[in-house]
């Protein structure tokens, strides 16, 4: 099929088509670059962009802030820290003022230069619970201030488990029992799956020894067949008895217990997780002054109290427990129950050398559960 007689050859047309995207590139590259404003603006803009977990601020407080300062914050959401990290580490991270990373990721995100160092002169940290400050995940609170905190625990039906659960070993043992097997919820966060398996051996989940971490794989994949779901915690499932034992934080547990009062909550020994979701300011935030203004507003005692009641997680104010209004049901559950000793708890710090191994094991466990 000769094409030489044609006035416009096929090759020429396809060649022109290939040039079009190149032209588009050049046009895009010469337009103003992605919004990375290196210097903080001296004047307050009329926008505040917050990147946070879903439904993580009380609507009333946000409305009150908007009324007082005339700015309604624009809220975007993520469902895990990994997404936060991916976005901040890319072109999509430009333009956020405030982000809310979990304690485990603060070191990784700040090491990559994605967070502003906080100016403590502009923030009043005196009223905060001092045991929440200066912890291993952010010494000196260089990059973050605590927003709220939570614990990794277990909520369970004592009738089904045939007794109380006091340690992680009890948790794993109960899982194999006939009434419990197939009705367990475990978390999809890799460190919260592998962590307990390390703790029952007396090991530290912040270990740098990959062999220790890999050593939990067989045990966990063996346990996987008892697990029904790794999805979001569903209080309704616990109320109906579809799930009788679940890894959960205290707020989830409280929701379940409000629906089904015979459920019990425990923070198993020998140790468990304390996570602290924290306020940070993204590097190159378009309006740093507005960010500090919002943070100051969040740190005022009334707001701290309101947020605690709204979220079901304790904010970071000192002595919150005694200030809880009486109409809040199961209020001590918000704080993890009566006997919580923050000193006995450990916070995870994501280490790029070991974290992929954690995730590998999580993949294997989830695969084994569905087999």
């Amino acid at each position, binding site marked *: 099929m000769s094409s030489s007689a044609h006035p416009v050859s096929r090759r020429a047309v396809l060649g022109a088509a290939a040039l079009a995207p190149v032209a588009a590139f050049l046009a895009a590259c010469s337009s103003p670059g992605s919004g990375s404003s290196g210097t903080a603006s001296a004047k307050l803009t009329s926008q505040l962009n917050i990147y946070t977990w879903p439904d993580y601020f009380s609507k009333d407080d946000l409305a009150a802030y908007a009324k007082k300062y005339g700015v309604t914050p624009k809220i975007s959401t993520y469902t895990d820290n*990994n997404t936060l990290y991916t976005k901040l580490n890319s072109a999509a991270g430009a333009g956020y003022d405030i982000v809310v990373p979990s304690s485990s990721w603060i070191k990784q995100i700040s090491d990559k230069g994605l967070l502003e160092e906080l100016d403590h002169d502009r923030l009043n940290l005196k009223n905060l619970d001092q045991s929440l400050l200066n912890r291993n995940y952010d010494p000196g609170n260089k990059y973050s201030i605590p927003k709220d905190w939570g614990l990794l625990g277990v909520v369970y039906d004592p009738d089904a488990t045939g007794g109380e659960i006091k340690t992680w070993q009890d948790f794993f043992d109960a899982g194999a029992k006939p009434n419990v097997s197939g009705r367990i919820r475990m978390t999809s966060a890799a460190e919260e799956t592998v962590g307990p398996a390390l703790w029952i051996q007396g090991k530290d989940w912040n270990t740098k020894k990959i062999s220790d971490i890999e050593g939990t794989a067989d045990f966990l994949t063996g346990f996987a067949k008892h*697990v029904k*779901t790794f999805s979001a915690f569903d209080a309704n499932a616990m109320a109906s008895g579809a799930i009788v034992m679940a890894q959960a934080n205290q707020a989830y547990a409280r929701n379940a217990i409000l629906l089904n009062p015979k459920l019990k909550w425990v923070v198993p020994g020998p140790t468990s997780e304390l996570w602290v979701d924290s306020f940070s300011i993204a590097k190159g935030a378009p309006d740093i002054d507005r960010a500090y203004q919002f943070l100051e507003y969040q740190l005022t005692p009334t707001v701290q109290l309101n947020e605690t009641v709204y979220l079901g997680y304790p904010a970071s104010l000192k002595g919150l427990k005694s200030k809880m209004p009486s109409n809040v049901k199961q209020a001590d559950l918000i704080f993890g129950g009566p006997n919580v000793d923050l000193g006995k708890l450990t916070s995870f710090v994501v280490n790029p050398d070991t974290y*992929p191994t954690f995730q590998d094991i999580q993949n294997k466990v989830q695969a084994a559960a569905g087999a």
Partner: protein
Amino acid sequence: MPVFCWGAAKGGRVRRNTGDHVLAAIPLAWLAVLFLVPLGFTLVYSFGTSGFGSVTLGFSLDNYAQALGPLYLETFLRTLAFAVGSSAACLVFAYPIAYAIARRSGRFKIVAFALILVPYLASLLIRVMSWQILLAQGGPLERMLRSIGLLHSPLTILDSIPAVVIGTIAVYLPIAVIALAVVLDRIPPEVIEAGHDLGASPSATFFTVILPLSRPGIATAALLTAVPMLGELVIPVLLGGNKGLFLAQAISAQYVQSQNYALGSAMVVLLVIAIAVIVALLVRLTRGFDATGGEPGRPERAKRVEG
């Protein structure tokens, strides 16, 4: 090649060929920028070494070795089985529906079509979330089945593969129906009448005339359901309890959770190759599985109308 009408035919063909190439270039250009170039990144990254959230370029086959390891191979096969099975079920479900709409609804064709399409207009997430409520233990479906005596124990279907299949079929059914209906719609009634005139029973007519003529629709429907099902991420998490690793979850875990762009990229390249091979085999096996037998896509061999 008929020699008469040479001048007009050649002139028409010239215009047609150029025009076709210009037309073909438009989608090519758009997709080159938006799809091929980013995918090129993926290809390049697949040979690199991963840094947490970044890739050092190089030439290494380590990622491919890992991607071909037992865990991911098993994941791929499991996902393939799921996609083929659910797609087949979807097609079987969809064919009679498409047939009813395309050939038996007379004046009510639009209404019938609308009845199938309207649910599709509601947000996918809400539909899947509603299936979560419907299939939950103690939920509406369990109560209904119990009240009519079909069920005597708790409904444990949620957070398992059957629930994922049900949800997947519910989501993909309208696409399959559309793909089938647009083809069934165009089978000329004369062909069917001819079959009857020659003495064929209705079922024989169906199997020897209608079914073969609907092959483009079946092929399209199979493709548009099975392939996206391979990449399905949301439904296995919401209805399957996030268990039994599906391929899209495995790949996503590499990119987002493990921040291992290199390994994720290798897995993607392998996936594309695997699907390409399978589809090519299918096309070879069924001799262009969408041809209706008249090779209508070859204008230069089209019959000339006399006069």
